[in-house]
């Protein structure tokens, strides 16, 4: 892989974490903020798994095996966000 690719990956991963931190500095409603944070961390996790861990280069069967627990985690986050939003309505 060319050095530029590593720098791009570094920039993308740092940008996600920076954006999450930056989002907490904005004055928006907590439910909206939580949704934004979940979306950002989900995108970062997907990037990590697919690119850094090279899951995108694996077979479909292995990708499915790996995706199931990740989807369970995402489902957990979705439940929390939904519950939080409902409580603040």
């Amino acid at each position, binding site marked *: 892989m060319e050095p530029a690719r*590593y720098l791009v990956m570094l920039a993308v991963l740092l940008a996600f974490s920076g954006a999450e931190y930056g989002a907490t500095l904005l004055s928006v409603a907590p439910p909206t903020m939580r949704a934004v944070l979940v979306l950002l961390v989900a995108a970062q996790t997907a990037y990590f798994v697919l690119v850094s861990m090279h899951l995108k280069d694996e077979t479909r069967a292995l990708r499915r095996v790996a995706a199931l627990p990740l989807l*369970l985690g995402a489902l957990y986050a979705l439940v929390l966000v939904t519950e939080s939003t409902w409580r603040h309505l």
Partner: protein
Amino acid sequence: VSDTHAPAHGQAAWPLDAQFGAASPAKLAMWFFLLSDLLTFVGLLLGYGILRAAGGPWRHAGEPALNLPFTLLLTGVLIVSSVTMLVARDAAVSGKFASATRWLLVTAGGGVLFLVGQYAEWFGLGSPGLIAEGLRLGHSAYASSFYAITGFHGLHVAAGVIYLLITVARNSAGRATAGDVELVGLFWHFVDLVWNLVFTFLYLFPGVA
């Protein structure tokens, strides 16, 4: 079976599997281990989420807030180490094992730096840590979930550093294969991936409550 995948440096050649292709049994085992480990972290974060959603004050009087800029810096250290791990992995795959050893050491250095940072956060290093400031294990759900989750992750970082150093030693002795470097890479990326979840849910969520 004539169509085989031969990992670098003389390791056993495995036939291409109909389901998992060229992935070695060790690689599959690592994926299964990481996925089960991920569910452990999800369980911890779920417990934290349930406690936090139960209502009432999350942070009690006298308990300090978490230092977000410092933790963002530690997050950056882990992300950089994840990229250096990728460089090491690619070097090993290309047969440049001396280069891989150097980048593995840089990666381990990142892990040590993270652990020093976590030590400073908990116990203080030059300035008082969270414990001295009043965040005591067992005194509140906030404190207990914080120490349980960050402590469990810290153990993973420590294990990852040891794993990296073992791989460095084996690499230097000419006994490590590109597959071995790839395995330690998977573990290290996982440690970084989980930290990003911890950073978001444990550190940033309280800040918006």
